């Protein structure tokens, strides 16, 4: 007899004596928020399994599949029955947390599949976390229920038993074509349509669309309007930076027709033209990632993306899908590159911020930080891609807008770098199914966050499934090598609408939306088209390769579906069950957007070096050094790094943490993409928003210099470094804010050309501001500081010549390469002792820096450099301390020896803590010292100390001791702040 459909609950809890991890996490979160908790928590995990199964079947699933009986016990019953293992005591509050309908629950999908391995048939599955809380004061219970147990942008919290007896999701969808009444709308109505539909289109853009449809003499359908909005969004088209800008500063006026083209792209073009035959750029600013030559047969790709807004609302999911997205950029570059390493750079507010001081709608920075790190960890580790380089910046202005930059480097055969869909190719989607996730992510990411965002934009937040993407990558790279498709791109912001629209731009495309595989029924044709569901790629597969392609995918359980055809019509035609739901000319879609015209203005701030040096001169240098080492920005990030797999693929050459105890801060990571070759790449970054508070030009210049310097310090060839820009700015409609961006872009152009270091890719994220109503009822806005991340990718000719920053041997000499000046503006010494940004920020002398880096590279290739470390935040004192404790050796430095260059006379605070650019500290064996020094032009280097076997870091000015303390104590100061358990 067939049993009827049942919903079983299988509950797991730790056996006595084993840790209750779920409950511990909850208590830890309370502690993180500053509560000293006296309450008790216990927890369990449940799987709800639906199917025509009897209780003995459910028990078998528990015993054989779900429960690890060495450490867990289980109970099985109908959902929410009294007899499920953990009965609720009278004094306990009972909560259950499950994903909202439609949110990806990767584990439930796996479980559903695994139940088949037992020969049983389940129809659906969901996972539930259960919590029993007692003895918490009411205010803590409130926090727990509303903020800690669940995140209401993706999860639902149920108090007491679950209010359902079956799992069901979706409903049947009945087709009905809908139009938007645009032709007769007045301006006010146009704006209202843009708002109501979350299109984020401006009045001029709406008017342009209206004019277009008046010419066509018909109303647009909803799907057409959505497609235009996605394609024209700031996120997809970068209309501000690619727009017209009228800029004004102390040097006069500049007019740009396309800011990006005339600054950053132009720099790259100039460099490529200068290089001529030696041009090593392969594809820049046109594909999903920049591509440069690695060796005769291989190229490397690099792209860095931001995922800021989703991470503010749901840090785990936001960062998780942020990394997943940029990895798909790599997979979607050329005919598909293999991801070989990841980078991660974050900006947060202080994780020790008092909970009661948080504005409404803001998650606690510690929670954001933990969620973001976990999100990156779980995606990168699962994909089997080492996360090798990163940085974390702390500043209170990131409170409402944390920054999450995820980078991905790929390796691609030379012959697979170009792609072109052909008319007649099938449009094929592979990977994940389409659901209602992430709808309006592209338009959402282009608007300012408010304290209401977490309520309004739930659909824009998603959870990724790294294994789906790994499976997709596995088959795609095999298909690439078999030549089974002509083009590929990722499904990112805008979903199919962007992916198909872009691929078909030069041809035309017809899409059959009802064929798209769905996670659940009920999606309208428009939802299918603009859904940003994760882990999907779109390919152009010629019909004669379809069978082979499909067979390859299914052999590894990857779903591949034909959803349309690239038809040579010059039009994008969207059909649903033979109804034409949209017909757009590619020309209007991609060329019709009216140019954005903006004003930009920059007024230089006065610098005040005198006050800066006087402020610092009052401080004890040893205390200042310890403060800087113990500041969040400089402190060891091992709590993060140790959670990332940085050695999978066995390509690691220089790790993020180096030295005798594997805990010194490396300047850059080096990976060897091909195990059989000694050629390698270095990956590094540079970023300093505090210089930008004084002058964004110097900020950009210093960041480029730092990123290049970090690569050179480990052994990269300074003539083979490519860089990426990520501009994250505030509200750029404001001329003053856009002015700082233009100023930074001008520096990017100048410095890139002067270094001969091309930009190969970039991305921007604008309008990063957070608004809320404060306790007095007035509107407050927090804008992020102007934030420019420069990421660098350098070629390392021979992995075995790389250098690490840890001191190697007592008796070796310390040489400083580069000149020091009075550059304390925006320095960590000032930030940490006076919370001030006074003074002059570093300025880069690029021709000299370029020469120094070339000379240093020669020395490294000759094997003369035993260790090298870049001088950046905290200057000489911090660099010397880090080299010392990383090597477990003492060091003695005499600052009187430093080559000094400034109109102001040298002071000891400046020698110790100035952040002058283009400086590297090197350890040289005595027998190589003379020839090392001879490589450089006189006056640009100096012997300034030596490595000792003693326990101390000693810094003196001739006879006068400025700092003397043990490297152990400095290491302790550096490791403590973020040594989270």
């Amino acid at each position, binding site marked *: 007899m067939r049993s009827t459909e049942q919903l079983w609950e299988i509950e797991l809890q730790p056996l006595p004596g*084993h*840790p209750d*991890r779920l409950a*511990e*996490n909850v208590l830890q979160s309370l502690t993180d928020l500053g509560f000293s908790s006296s309450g008790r928590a216990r927890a369990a995990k449940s799987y709800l399994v639906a199917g025509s199964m009897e209780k003995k079947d459910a028990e078998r699933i528990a015993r*054989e*599949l*779900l429960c*690890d*009986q*060495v*450490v867990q016990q289980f109970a099985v019953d109908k959902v929410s029955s009294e007899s499920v293992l953990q009965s609720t005591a009278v004094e306990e509050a009972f909560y259950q947390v499950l994903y909202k309908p439609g949110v990806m629950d*990767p*584990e439930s999908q*796996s*479980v559903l*599949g*695994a139940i088949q*391995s*037992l*020969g049983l048939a389940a129809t659906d599955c969901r996972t539930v976390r259960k919590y029993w809380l007692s003895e918490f004061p009411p205010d803590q219970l409130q926090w727990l229920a509303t903020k800690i147990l669940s995140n209401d942008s993706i999860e639902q919290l149920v108090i007491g038993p679950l209010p359902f007896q079956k799992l069901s999701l979706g409903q049947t969808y009945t087709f009905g074509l809908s139009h938007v009444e645009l032709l007769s709308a007045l301006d006010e109505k146009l704006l209202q349509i843009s708002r109501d539909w979350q299109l984020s289109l401006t009045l001029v853009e709406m008017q342009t669309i209206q004019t277009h449809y008046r010419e066509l003499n018909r109303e647009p359908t909803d799907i057409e309007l959505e497609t235009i909005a996605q394609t024209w969004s700031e996120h997809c088209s970068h209309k501000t930076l690619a727009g017209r800008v009228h800029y004004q500063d102390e040097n006069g006026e500049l007019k740009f027709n396309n800011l990006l083209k005339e600054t950053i792209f132009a720099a790259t073009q100039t460099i490529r033209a200068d290089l001529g035959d030696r041009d090593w750029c392969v594809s820049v600013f046109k594909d999903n990632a920049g591509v440069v030559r690695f060796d005769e047969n291989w190229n490397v790709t690099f792209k860095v993306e931001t995922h800021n807004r989703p991470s503010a609302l749901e840090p785990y999911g936001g960062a998780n899908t942020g990394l997943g997205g940029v990895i798909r950029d790599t997979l979607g570059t050329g005919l598909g590159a293999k991801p070989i390493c990841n980078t991660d750079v974050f900006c947060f507010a202080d994780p020790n911020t008092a909970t009661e001081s948080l504005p409404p709608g803001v998650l606690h920075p510690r929670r954001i930080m933990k969620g973001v790190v976990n999100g990156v*960890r779980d995606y990168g*580790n*699962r994909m*089997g891609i080492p996360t090798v380089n990163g940085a974390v910046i702390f500043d209170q202005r990131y409170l409402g807008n944390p920054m999450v930059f995820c980078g991905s480097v790929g390796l691609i055969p030379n012959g697979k770098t170009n792609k072109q869909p052909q008319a007649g190719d099938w449009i094929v989607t592979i990977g994940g199914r389409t659901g209602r996730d992430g709808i309006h992510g592209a338009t959402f990411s282009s608007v300012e966050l408010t304290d209401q965002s977490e309520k309004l934009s739930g659909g824009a937040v998603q959870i990724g*499934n*790294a*294994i789906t993407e*790994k*499976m997709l990558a*596995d088959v795609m790279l095999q298909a690439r090598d078999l030549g089974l498709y002509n083009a590929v791109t990722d499904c990112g912001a805008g979903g199919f609408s962007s992916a198909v629209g872009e691929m078909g731009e030069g041809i035309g495309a017809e899409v059959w939306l009802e064929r798209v595989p769905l996670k659940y029924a009920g999606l309208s044709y428009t939802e299918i088209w603009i859904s940003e569901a994760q882990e999907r790629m779109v390919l152009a597969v010629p019909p004669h390769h379809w069978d082979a392609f499909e067979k390859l995918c299914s*052999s*590894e*359980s990857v779903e591949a579906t034909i959803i349309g055809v690239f038809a040579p019509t010059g039009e994008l035609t969207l059909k649903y069950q033979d109804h034409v739901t949209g017909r757009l000319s590619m020309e209007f879609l991609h060329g019709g957007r009216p140019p954005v015209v903006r004003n930009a203005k920059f007024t230089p701030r006065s610098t005040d070096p005198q006050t800066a040096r006087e402020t610092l001169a009052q401080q004890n240098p040893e205390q200042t050094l310890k403060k800087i080492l113990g500041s969040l920005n400089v402190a060891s990030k091992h709590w993060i*790094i*140790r*959670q*990332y*797999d940085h*050695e*999978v*693929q*066995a390509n*690691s*050459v220089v*790790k993020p943490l*180096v030295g*005798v105890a*594997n805990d010194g801060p490396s300047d850059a990571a080096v990976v*060897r993409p091909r*195990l*059989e070759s000694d050629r390698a790449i270095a990956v590094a970054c540079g970023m300093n928003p505090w210089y930008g508070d004084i002058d964004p030009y110097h900020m950009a210049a210093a960041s480029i210099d730092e990123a290049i310097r970090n690569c050179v310090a480990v052994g990269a060839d300074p003539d083979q470094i490519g860089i990426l820009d990520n501009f994250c700015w505030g509200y750029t409609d404001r001329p003053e804010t856009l002015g700082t961006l233009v100023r930074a872009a001008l520096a990017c152009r100048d410095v890139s050309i002067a270094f001969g270091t091309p930009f190969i890719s970039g991305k921007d994220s604008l309008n990063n501001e957070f608004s809320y109503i404060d306790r007095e009822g007035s509107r407050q806005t927090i804008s992020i500081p102007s934030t420019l991340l420069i990421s660098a990718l350098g070629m390392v000719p021979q*992995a*075995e010549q*790389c*250098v*690490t920053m*840890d001191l*190697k041997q007592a008796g070796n000499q310390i040489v400083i390469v580069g000149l020091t000046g009075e550059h304390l503006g925006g320095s960590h010494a000032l930030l940490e002792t006076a919370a001030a940004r006074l003074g002059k920020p570093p300025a880069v002398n690029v021709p000299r820096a370029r020469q120094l880096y070339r000379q240093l590279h020669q020395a490294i290739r000759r094997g003369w450099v035993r260790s090298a470390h870049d001088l950046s935040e905290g200057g000489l004192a911090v660099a010397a301390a880090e080299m010392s404790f990383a090597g477990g050796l003492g060091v003695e430095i005499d600052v009187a020896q430093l080559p000094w260059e400034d109109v102001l006379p040298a002071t000891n605070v400046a020698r110790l803590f100035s952040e002058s650019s283009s400086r590297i500290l090197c350890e040289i064996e005595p027998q190589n010292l003379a020839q090392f020094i001879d490589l450089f032009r006189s006056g640009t280097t100096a012997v300034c100390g030596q490595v000792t076997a003693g326990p101390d870091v000693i810094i003196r000015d001739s006879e006068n001791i400025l700092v003397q303390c043990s490297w152990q104590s400095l290491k302790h100061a550096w490791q403590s702040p973020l040594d989270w*358990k």
Partner: protein
Amino acid sequence: MAQPRVLILRSPGTNCEIESAYVFEQSGGISEAIHVNQLMEKPEILRSFQILCFPGGFSFGDDISAGQILASWLKHSVMDALQEFVASRKLMLGICNGFQVLMRTGLLTPNFADGAAATLTWNTNGRYTAKWVELEATNHNSPFLRGIDRMYLPIAHAEGRFVFRDDQTADRMEQAGQLALRYASNALHESPNGSQREVAGICDPTGHVLGLMPHPERNIQRTHHPHWTRLPADRRPDGLKLFENAIAYFK
């Protein structure tokens, strides 16, 4: 004998197959990465291989618990072929996630009617941890571990804490020489994940099936060692010997 053939078993989420295949080839074998779907379709392909390697990764996302879903598929579809492989005294190696899979198939530990003899569960610190550890090899009868006393290798896992069902089982396995690899105890390094009896890897009673949490395939080149810039250039990487041993066993 001809070059030994090594089957590197892939599955959704496996991610160390390339370097694992590479090191077996460097050691003189012929590696072939095969997807578990293919093995389940034709279990008899196992007969043409001498070594079966379960590489690291996150098979099926490590959902439920690490290695569990792949193990469940193997147990219910190719267990006979796996047992035949072991019975014919061939070699089986599980690294990290591969070790977790092997544990849950029951091929490594004594059998009990009511659950497993031991398990690999969450690290004491509750999170994924990547770091280098010093290991001691205590079973020199296992073909994999001949001539190996110590190895310096990286771990990279969240669920690597080895837990026995009870002390008697632990004693029994210890006496049988099954606790083949231990995290070396020294003053500086505490056990990295809280494993009982510092277990980092175990073998079956014959020593022919070995599972370990650390990654020997990540210390096979000079530049893999985290201190390589401090060490002599001619130092042999610690992880190589284990793979060379496996190949040598068939020669």
